[in-house]
């Protein structure tokens, strides 16, 4: 049994490495992105093998799903601005100058040395040593939730998570600023089958996202995984043009961006005082407070990720119609 599992591990590890190399060497950029998505999903599978289902869910939903959508959207935009829309393989989108072989070899040697150092450090480091498991297990009863990863994210190391939400907020502000005045690539016409698919899956995705959020207090799942799944709702709505971003909705979107970070910081400050520090939730309300924060952060993450996918801030100028990609 163990041998079969190890064989599976070796095969999976080999596939992950091969896919990483392939996604950087294949010439067609679209193929590179697809290979990267497969790479991400197989990495998530490997993390399930390492008994890290939370991380695997986050990687599959955010690191692979949303990132893949962002990359494809950018590829579409680059093809549009370079006038290569509707062509087959996408090669050489950026103007390139030949790199001297010496530079490549120097880089390779440099990377090789770093890798060798890392590998030696990894092999020399004590593995499976005592980490924070005992500390976390000891503090679990006071955390208000039953799932250790959620307890660490929302309670013990809540500062990190707050900063993470702020980073997302900063990213969406930056993207809106960078893309100001940029012209939109025409949305691809996806056809009726896609529309039907979107309508069929939308309600199911809403249920799955909410379920992941709710389940996060006792099992793998939580605000980030749920938020990413709900962001898929936004992606479907945008791609199927059921929802077209309106300038009038900007105010609402801004509130949604700030909601998570604001609620998080607000709760942290409210519970402080009376001898407690920020994020030291009173034990009897800890579960309710964590769920409240998670719920609002989930909404924020979903809206922010969908906005990052859409890119440009919706502006008053009407999008010129009839400029289709066919």
């Amino acid at each position, binding site marked *: 049994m163990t041998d079969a599992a190890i064989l599976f591990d070796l095969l999976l590890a080999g596939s992950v490495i091969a896919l990483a190399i392939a996604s950087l060497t294949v010439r067609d950029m679209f193929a590179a992105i697809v290979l990267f998505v497969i790479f991400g999903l197989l990495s998530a599978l490997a993390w399930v093998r390492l008994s890290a289902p939370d991380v695997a869910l986050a990687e599959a939903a955010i690191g692979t799903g949303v990132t893949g959508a962002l990359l494809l959207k950018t590829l579409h935009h680059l093809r549009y601005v370079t006038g290569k829309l509707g062509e087959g393989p996408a090669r050489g989108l950026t103007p390139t100058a030949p790199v001297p072989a010496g530079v490549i070899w120097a880089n390779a040697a440099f990377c090789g040395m770093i890798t060798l150092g890392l590998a030696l450090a990894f092999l020399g480091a004590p593995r499976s040593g005592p980490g924070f498991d005992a500390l976390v297990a000891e503090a679990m009863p006071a955390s208000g939730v039953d799932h250790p*990863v959620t307890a660490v994210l929302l309670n013990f190391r809540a500062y990190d998570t707050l900063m993470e939400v702020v980073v997302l907020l900063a990213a969406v502000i930056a993207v809106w600023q960078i893309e100001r005045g940029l012209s939109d690539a025409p949305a691809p016409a996806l056809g009726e089958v896609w529309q039907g698919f979107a309508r069929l899956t939308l309600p199911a995705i809403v249920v799955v996202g909410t379920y992941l959020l709710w389940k996060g207090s006792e099992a793998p799942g939580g605000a980030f995984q749920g938020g990413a799944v709900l962001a898929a709702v936004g992606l479907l709505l945008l791609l199927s043009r059921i929802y077209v971003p309106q300038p009038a909705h900007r105010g609402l979107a801004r509130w949604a961006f700030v909601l998570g970070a604001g609620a998080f910081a607000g709760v942290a400050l409210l519970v402080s005082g009376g001898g407690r520090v920020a994020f030291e939730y009173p034990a009897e309300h800890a579960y309710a407070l964590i769920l409240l924060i998670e719920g609002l952060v989930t909404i924020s993450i979903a809206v922010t990720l969908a906005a990052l996918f859409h890119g440009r801030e919706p502006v008053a100028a009407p999008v010129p119609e009839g400029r289709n990609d066919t």
Partner: protein
Amino acid sequence: MTPDLIYGLTGIAVFAIGLVGALCAQDRLRRVLALKLCSVGAGFVLVVAAWRSPPADPDPVPHALVITGIVVMVSATAVALALIRRLQTLEAEDDDD
């Protein structure tokens, strides 16, 4: 041979591939892809650090760190891609003039 050894070395290899790619790739999109590979490689090493042989539960703290890392990486990727879109548009406009 144990899963943590296999996947730990896998993570380091993926990190190295990403590093070479980020330094040598010509296409901007591919450079972002390479940096993303680096982050996944680092994630591998952290998840391996949290792993304990099966009956024991893994350490939740590195898991939380990796989840944070994934979300930060998607933010950074989104900003990088927005910069690429902007840059490419400006270059295309220059070519037209």
